[in-house]
């Protein structure tokens, strides 16, 4: 007999947690917290050159500014930090490596004084030649961004190559690649490039650090996705025990990976741990213009893909060379490079695989986590190549994809057998939804219309031991509090957890609260990344809820003297139909039950749950092979119908359909939101997003005046979103992640649609109006391919007429 009844369990459409407060503007973000007059403010002085030795830092004048109390420089705080590879110090020590790197930190009584003080710090450099082009940096070692690479600590699955600019080199060696290429019927080689892009979250970074004056105790309030990982990186970096570092993560205003791991916290800490400052909280607020140089950006890439295809249209072999432009640090960026590498046949079965994925250091802001984590990059290239090859072979691109699909039981590029999934039916539906088979007339006179499809695939890119734990507390009135250190940054995980708890304990959703993380009270969770939370933390939450329920039922069974299976919890009341009893959960849950034998039993009910993925094996460093390289994959497809104005290069999306196999929709409103949001973000990235630099490595797009993201006027008014539910094996309810996946394939689908519309293949993202216009002109000169080497543009810029003076 099912013991639980609820109307607000998994699969229900419910209002999301905290939406009301967000709409009212009352939710307090880190910058909204108040610390009184004790609070100090910090402001970074940033490098104005891309590479060079620091000769002197003169801050005499800064100290004269009213309110400035201290200036801290790199050598005052020489700790190295990093999640996978400790290649980062909070401030430059001895040399700078990109324009924008922190060189000094001015601490003052007010934000204005700190800003004014920072403007008065004079830094002298001995300039050295920088390197910006990742392929040049990877293949020519004249300029080393990190000459000390061999000294840096790193985890075992990251493979830095000393005396080069290669921070990690991920390899797949599977099958007989050379032979397959030699014997193949058709051979193709294509190159695709994409610049670094930025997350564009609304809330810029903000952090407050306070170190106790008398004892080594540290509290950090920060806009971070992963409170516990901040704690771990900081504690390891400065050699503190974990319980001496408390990290509080208030609600964050969007992350998309940009607030994963540690971002600005160590920089703030450089001030807070200063002997003259200890005891006072220090706040570091990053203004918009400094965000892209203070935190992760998505790595740029240059991808070369070679395919061997048989005359039956079956892919025989693939050879991938991916140069990821990881900028000045790969402490986090090493991992998306791996993630791309161990998924480097996409959603296809390819028997022979050779992959080299490199994270390459350059003198630019640092690459790291970004929604999709290596897969929008990888699939952004592969799905163009698949489309190109299908077109060149005269096979319908949808048919070609289906013919080579990575079906259940077939090995992925790491040798792990693929699990069951609904991709084939998703592809069919996406094609139907955009009328893929029909060549339709453009809606706008003089424009060109086309349609394109691309597949998505991604596994959670987590260390083998990325764990989660949760606590479910039943209050004395039947309401429930959940401590699960996931960050709900708009993806809606807290709603999903509340639905799980409602499903398991039978109390209404509205009675259930999920709290924002505080490492002091919450049990451990690795990170809110990798689309893992509803899966991994979901396991812990479900377990904790079941444990709490079992305790409740056990107590009632003893109290009512009936077997446990006669008791159910329905809509917040405990019921025994046999006895005709129905009682709301009340203070006895907290204070104990006077049992029939007169003894008080029970006490506050706390359910706990812990989860760690049981059987991941890191891919072999030489071959990339592993019996189980990842926990599971989420797959999907995107179809896009576009029109292009040949006169200006403008693209308008008429229609977009996107479907994913989510295993089970726990919170459908959340999934809908994730698919819509990721699709729009992917379209935006494809159409216009690019971090552009001048020939000196200065970011020309530091804020939203020139870093453009799509507005509502640039995207379709709706996204035709849907999902399939082929259950995942090891999962709370069969569910798997979908938060990142919707960002993976809109760009290649759109690019494929533009190819269909124009008949010329654009190999360089983004498809800006100017670039599309240039492609149209190239087409009229008889060309079939168009690409602009992103680093060549810097050279063009060097020669261009840039001002009228």
């Amino acid at each position: 007999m099912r013991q639980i009844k609820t109307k607000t369990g998994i699969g229900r459409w419910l209002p999301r947690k905290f939406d009301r407060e967000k709409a009212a503007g009352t939710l307090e973000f880190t910058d909204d917290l108040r610390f009184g007059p004790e609070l100090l403010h910090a402001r970074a002085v940033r490098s104005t050159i891309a590479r060079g030795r620091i000769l002197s830092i003169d801050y005499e004048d800064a100290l004269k500014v009213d309110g400035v109390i201290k200036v801290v420089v790199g050598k005052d705080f020489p700790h190295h930090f990093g999640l996978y590879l400790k290649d980062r110090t909070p401030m430059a020590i001895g040399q700078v490596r990109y324009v924008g790197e922190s060189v000094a930190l001015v601490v003052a009584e007010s934000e204005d004084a700190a800003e004014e003080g920072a403007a008065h710090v004079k830094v002298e450099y001995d300039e050295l030649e920088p390197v910006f082009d990742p392929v040049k940096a990877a293949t020519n070692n004249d300029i080393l961004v990190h000459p000390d690479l061999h000294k840096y600590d790193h985890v075992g699955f990251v493979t830095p190559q000393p005396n080069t600019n290669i921070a990690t080199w991920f390899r797949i060696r599977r099958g007989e690649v050379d032979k397959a290429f030699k014997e193949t019927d058709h051979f193709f080689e294509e190159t695709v490039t994409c610049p670094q892009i930025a997350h564009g979250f609304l809330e810029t970074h903000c952090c407050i650090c306070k170190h106790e004056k008398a004892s080594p105790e540290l509290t950090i309030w920060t806009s971070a996705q992963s409170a516990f990982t901040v704690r771990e990186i900081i504690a390891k970096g400065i050699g503190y025990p974990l319980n001496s570092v408390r990290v509080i993560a208030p609600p964050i205003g969007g992350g998309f990976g940009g607030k994963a791991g540690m971002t600005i916290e160590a920089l703030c800490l450089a001030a807070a741990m200063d002997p003259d400052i200890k005891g006072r909280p220090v706040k570091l607020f990053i203004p918009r213009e400094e965000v892209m140089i203070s935190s992760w950006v998505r790595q740029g890439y240059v991808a070369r893909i070679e395919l061997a295809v048989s005359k039956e249209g079956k892919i025989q072999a693939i050879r991938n060379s991916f140069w990821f432009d990881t900028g000045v640090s790969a402490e986090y960026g090493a991992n998306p490079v791996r993630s791309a590498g161990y998924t480097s046949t996409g959603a296809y079965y390819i028997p022979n695989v050779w992959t080299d994925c490199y994270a390459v250091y350059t003198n630019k802001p640092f690459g790291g986590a970004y929604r999709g984590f290596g897969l929008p990059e990888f699939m952004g290239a592969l799905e163009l190549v698949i489309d190109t090859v299908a077109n060149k072979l005269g096979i319908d691109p949808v048919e070609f994809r289906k013919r080579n699909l990575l079906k259940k039981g077939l090995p992925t590029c790491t040798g792990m057998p693929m699990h069951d999934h609904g991709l084939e039916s998703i592809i069919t539906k996406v094609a139907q939804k955009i009328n893929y088979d029909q060549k339709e007339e453009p809606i706008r006179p003089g424009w060109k219309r086309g349609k394109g499809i691309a597949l998505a695939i991604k596994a959670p890119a987590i260390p083998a031991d990325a764990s989660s734990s949760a606590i479910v507390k039943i209050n004395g009135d039947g309401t429930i509090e959940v401590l699960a250190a996931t960050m709900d940054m708009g993806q809606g995980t807290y709603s999903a957890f509340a639905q799980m708890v409602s499903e398991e304990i039978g109390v209404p959703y509205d009675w259930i609260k999920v709290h924002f993380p505080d490492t002091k009270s919450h049990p451990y969770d690795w990170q809110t990344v990798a689309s893992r939370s509803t899966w991994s933390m979901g396991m812990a939450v479900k377990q904790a809820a079941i444990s709490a329920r079992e305790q409740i039922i056990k107590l009632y069974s003893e109290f009512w003297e009936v077997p446990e299976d006669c008791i159910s919890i329905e809509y917040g009341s405990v019921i025994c139909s046999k006895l005709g009893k129905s009682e709301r959960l009340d203070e006895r849950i907290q204070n104990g039950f006077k049992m029939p034998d007169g003894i008080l039993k029970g006490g506050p009910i706390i359910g706990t749950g812990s989860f760690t993925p049981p059987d991941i094996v890191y891919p072999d460093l030489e071959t990339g092979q592993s019996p189980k390289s990842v926990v599971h994959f989420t797959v999907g497809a995107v179809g896009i119908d576009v029109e292009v104005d040949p006169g200006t290069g403008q693209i308008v999306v008429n229609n977009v359909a996107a479907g994913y196999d989510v295993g089970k929709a726990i919170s459908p409103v959340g999934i809908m939101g994730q698919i819509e949001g990721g699709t729009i973000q992917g379209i935006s990235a494809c159409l216009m997003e690019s971090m552009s630099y001048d020939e000196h490595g200065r970011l020309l797009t530091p804020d939203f005046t020139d870093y453009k993201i799509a507005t509502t006027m640039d995207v379709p008014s709706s996204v035709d979103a849907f999902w399939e539910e082929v259950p995942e094996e090891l999962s709370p309810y069969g569910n798997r992640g979908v938060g990142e996946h919707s960002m993976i394939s809109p760009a290649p689908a759109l690019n494929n649609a533009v190819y269909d519309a124009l008949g010329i293949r654009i190999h360089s993202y983004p498809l800006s109006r100017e670039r599309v216009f240039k492609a149209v002109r190239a087409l009229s000169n008889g060309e079939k391919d168009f690409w602009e080497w992103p680093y060549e543009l810097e050279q063009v810029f060097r020669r261009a007429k840039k001002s009228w003076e």
Partner: protein
Amino acid sequence: MLAFELERPKTLEAALGILADNPGKAVPKSGGTDLIIWMKKRTIHPKILVDLALIKDLSNITISENGRLSVGTNVTLNRLEDYLDEREVLPALIDACRSHSDFTLRNKATMVGNVTAAVPSGDMIPALCCYDAEVETASLEGTRHISVLDFILGPKKNALDPGEIATRINIPLPEVAGTGCYLKSTRRSALDLAQASVACVMLCRTGVTEYRLSCGAVSPIPVRVFEAEKMLRGKSNLTPSLIEHSAELAVEAVNPITDVRSSREYRLQMIRELTKRALALCQKRIQEVA
């Protein structure tokens, strides 16, 4: 952003007094949508902001008996657009208002501010040049009238003397039937500065159709394409070759730069394309009215 003092005078005289008393330190503010951002980015460091918003005399739109539209410096773009739209006058300027930023920003941004800012991509400038608009100024020395074409001297440089304020922009309303439009090339469809832009005005004087063409964001100072205007004068039927030739003349009249928003080459191509489209659109609009 560095600290500053905010003055909010209620009369023009008081505003001029503050400016005269604080040479080099005080600057006037209309909507502040350029000014505040420049201050935040530290490209300028005024000690005193003279907010003109409370000066009633500078907050209205009037039409004089001789048909001169006069727009005070506090008039926001949204108010201006509504006003022109209701009266169905100055269509190129209506288009320009609508192409500027987005609706919420237009609740603050002003036309006078757009012109005094003197940024080459200023969206209001080309249409104002086509309509022969002039800037009316005031200082303790008196008032001046300067045509918009002469008012902008270069990027972020205008003809105002220290202590002088732009009080209004005056536009003679065309006495004859006609139409106009403003087209703008951008990286995205809202909230973007022009890569290149073209305003076109068509005036149907009895017997002689007259055209005016002006380009934005492609030259340090405003550009009227007088050569094309001369060639088109009297042509009521715009043939493809006339349109093509006009576009050529427009390209010859401009001198764009390369920056992060666009290359010089693309800007030239867009001037060509937008000129063609603007002329065609005027032709279409005039037929719709007829």
